[in-house]
């Protein structure tokens, strides 16, 4: 069953007399019970804006917000703010914000912080809340005693576990994680990723995993969306996107990463990501694309469907084009860089 279905989502901001096209026609879905979808992109690709739209945490300068977001078939965009807050936010969809571990309340004991929303909503007595806090802390791999400590007594990894416990307090079906390990050392990052894998399996929380690091995304995500300039350049199974990318941006991004056990040096990608107040006409990647041809300059590529249920926004995948452009340009060389 589909848990979340997003269709043609747009989120634009006013910035002076200009408009930032942060999310510009994004569609994807997430299955129930433990599917993880990664949204991978560089800064300014619109990935965090997309997450904020899911949580309806929108700033005042929104110029355009439309499209459809359905949770178990229920349209969320038409819900009133009160209804959304009462029934959806934290209860069905929870989020771990980037850098949240650094904004834990310094004067509130950890146990209180974890269950604060429940007590505030008047849903639990203090003793019930304490029990719930103990349970959640244990669930994220922390000893119970942590509940009576303060944030400054915790290490970075412990704080991030607390933030995850806080997001789980209402038993959400969907957890959005925005760069959940970016402030952590790599050995601690691996511990947190193992915890997220546990939660994905049991109780089977579905996840949107937002990161700039496609390697990290592959550590947990079943499907990957590659975000570029407010759109998803490519979406598909982790296998297909990583091993047989159908968008030149994905291909170049993968080639630009230094690999541990590979003697082939990383290749640089030309150019810069575009300014989202004036994205390029035609394909948004065309100024940087080594395979660019005339059509890309003026015509916006549609989302060409892929057999894995995903898509690629690139004319090289046009089935009506003459010759197999994908074969010519994008198909991975034998024994590519994988494995």
């Amino acid at each position: 069953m589909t848990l979340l279905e997003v269709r043609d989502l747009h989120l634009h901001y006013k910035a002076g007399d200009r408009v930032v096209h942060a999310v510009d026609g994004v569609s994807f879905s997430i299955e129930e019970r433990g599917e993880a979808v990664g949204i991978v992109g560089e800064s300014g690709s619109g990935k965090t804006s997309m997450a904020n739209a899911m949580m309806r945490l929108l700033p005042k300068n929104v110029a355009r917000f439309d499209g459809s977001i359905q949770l178990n078939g229920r349209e969320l965009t038409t819900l009133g703010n009160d209804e959304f807050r009462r029934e959806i936010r934290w209860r069905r969809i929870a989020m771990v914000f980037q850098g949240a571990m650094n904004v834990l309340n310094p004067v509130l004991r950890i146990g209180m912080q974890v269950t604060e929303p429940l007590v505030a909503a008047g849903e639990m007595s203090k003793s019930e809340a304490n029990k719930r806090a103990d349970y959640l802390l244990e669930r994220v791999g922390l000893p119970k005693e942590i509940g009576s400590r303060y944030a400054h007594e915790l290490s970075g990894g412990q704080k991030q576990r607390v933030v995850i416990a806080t997001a789980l307090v209402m038993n959400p079906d969907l957890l959005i994680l925005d760069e959940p390990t970016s402030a952590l050392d790599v050995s601690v990052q691996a511990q947190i990723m193992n915890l997220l894998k546990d939660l994905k399996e049991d109780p089977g929380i579905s996840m949107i995993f937002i990161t700039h690091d496609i390697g990290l995304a592959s550590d947990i995500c079943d499907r990957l969306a590659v975000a570029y300039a407010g759109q998803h350049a490519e979406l598909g199974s982790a296998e297909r996107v990583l091993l047989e990318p159908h968008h030149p941006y994905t291909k170049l991004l993968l080639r630009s990463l230094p690999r541990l056990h590979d003697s082939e040096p990383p290749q640089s990608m030309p150019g810069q990501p575009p300014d989202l107040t004036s994205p390029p006409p035609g394909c948004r990647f065309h100024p940087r694309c080594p395979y660019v041809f005339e059509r890309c300059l003026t015509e916006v590529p549609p989302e060409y469907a892929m057999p894995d249920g995903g898509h690629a926004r690139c004319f090289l995948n046009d089935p009506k084009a003459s010759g197999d452009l994908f074969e010519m340009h994008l198909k991975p060389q034998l024994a590519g860089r994988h494995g």
Partner: protein
Amino acid sequence: MAEEVIADPAGVNQQDDQTAPLVEVRDGEVVFQTRKGIFRSGAVHALNGVDLKIHRGETVALVGESGSGKTTLGRLTLRLVKPTAGSVWYDGRDISELPESELREFRQHAQIVFQDPFSSLNPYMTVGELIEEPLIIDGIKDSTGRRKRVDETLEAVDLIPADRFASKYPGQMSGGQRQRVGIARALVRNPDYIVTDEPVSMIDASSRIEVLNLLDTLQRQRRMAFLFITHDIATARYFADRIAVMYAGFIVEEGIAGRIIDNPLHPYTQALIAAIPEPDPRNRLKRRAVVPGEPGDTAKALVGCPFFSRCPMRTPGLCDVDRPRLIAREPGHFVACHLYDTGSPVPASPLADRDSQSRLLL
């Protein structure tokens, strides 16, 4: 708190040097005094008896997690901090105790590129002014000559056409371009030695390789000595000749870059490499082998191995009482670990084998 200085007997840590190193740290120790309140004070042992050599035309990467001492060691080689014990040498001269007045001359030859190109450049100065500033500080009076060097340096860092970039402000440039300005500021003095501290960690993935390739080209063309400080060991493989892995203020392993990554000997290096997720759809089907705990607490002066409390291969009674020395295990490959004391076969580490790095869930 007892302060301990571990001596590394002469010769133990020596490589087969054909030439004298340009930069050398001998048994370098740095202790920072901290205040933990009004009456209590503490000490952070940021560096503990570290030896490091960098030759002309060589790039050495210092790899480690936060608090490992890599930035302190980099700053020590530039004499931005003073050694608490041990000594720092540059071009055959002991600079450990040089007064500021004499350091000024040294610093024309030794430069640093900072991590953050967004905060390390004055937003009210043009790119041209930013790059010219070091020359003015050096007392070069000829303004036409200064401008010429600014233009040449802009071209060297691929900010072309130079005159167009010289009149821009940092705010009008991308992260990658700003970092080129940071590099140009270091380069304009024609240094022989550059420390780059996480030079690309604030830059978008797609621009990183360009900046690293630029540094690599400049280093080769000018035969500079480079110290490349990074938390990213995969990047170090491509942009360094040698890698020194640091943990809690110690160098725990050092050697030729490819060897360190393909055949890591120290359990910490093995853990560091095993923890890195490379793009691979099979990753999600397994748990990653991890070491428990978090990087070492440098507030304590350690007796034994700094990695003891997290190490899956430790021998209690040995590793927690006797600090292992950095010794050569094979030519050009040094490790500080008791597993390699005797030369007898080393038991397989749960972290070392690439294929069994993770427990399959299927």
